[in-house]
């Protein structure tokens, strides 16, 4: 099935659905690739922060020194 876009003209109120051009499809593919990179980066960051929190809590309980970043995560 062809990829389409809905265009709503706010001046006339007319709405139409047309097929994407080859250029637009190429941009979508590029967006998709960038989106996957962004999602991976975001997940990696979330995982890193969670790991730091776990480490910080354990160190706090054990009476060990926290890194500056671990301390910031706990108390801002």
């Amino acid at each position, binding site marked *: *099935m062809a*990829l*389409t*876009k*809905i*265009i*709503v*003209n*706010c*001046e*006339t*109120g007319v*709405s139409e*659905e047309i097929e*994407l051009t080859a250029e*637009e499809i190429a*941009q*979508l593919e*590029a*967006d*998709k690739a*960038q*989106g996957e990179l*962004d*999602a991976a*980066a*975001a997940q990696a*960051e*979330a995982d890193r*922060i*969670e790991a730091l929190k776990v480490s910080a809590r354990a160190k706090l309980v054990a009476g060990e020194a926290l890194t500056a970043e671990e301390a910031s995560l706990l108390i801002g």
Partner: protein
Amino acid sequence: MITDLIASTTVGAGGTSSIEFTSIPGTYTDLVILLSARTTAASDVPRLRANTYISEFNKSNVFFSNGATVSSFSDTSNTYVQIGTIPGTSWSANSFCNVLIQLPNYAGTTYAKTYKTRTTSKDSGANQEARLTGTGFTSFTAAITSVQITSANTFAQYTTAYLYGTLKGSGGATVTVV
């Protein structure tokens, strides 16, 4: 403050990859876009552009949460604005997200445009959720006359998009800056 519905659309049975509002009148103060969306893929992160600009979105700071962890990152991809995670086939069948996009002073031509987005996705069945708040700025000062919301996959049937224009109110005290 006065809010008018400028235009709206609902995605039909075939789905669509992009929703565009064109010929936006410049008679309002700010623009607000409300999106209720779902994708035909497992999930998706839609993108927002204005005036078909591709590389003028300088930087945004995004705060997101999946319910268990709150994280943030700076998006410097500068080709679009990330709106947030929208549900798809990996979510329950009737799960849609709510997206609020604000474009203040969209019709002005003096200052670079800024934007704010908020997205909430909650699975109606499984314990799955996503929330995103993003703010950022662009490098273009031209008035916004069109906006494009694109999916890297396909927006599913019953996805809706509403474009509102808000007008600043009148009355109240006048403040003079000296």
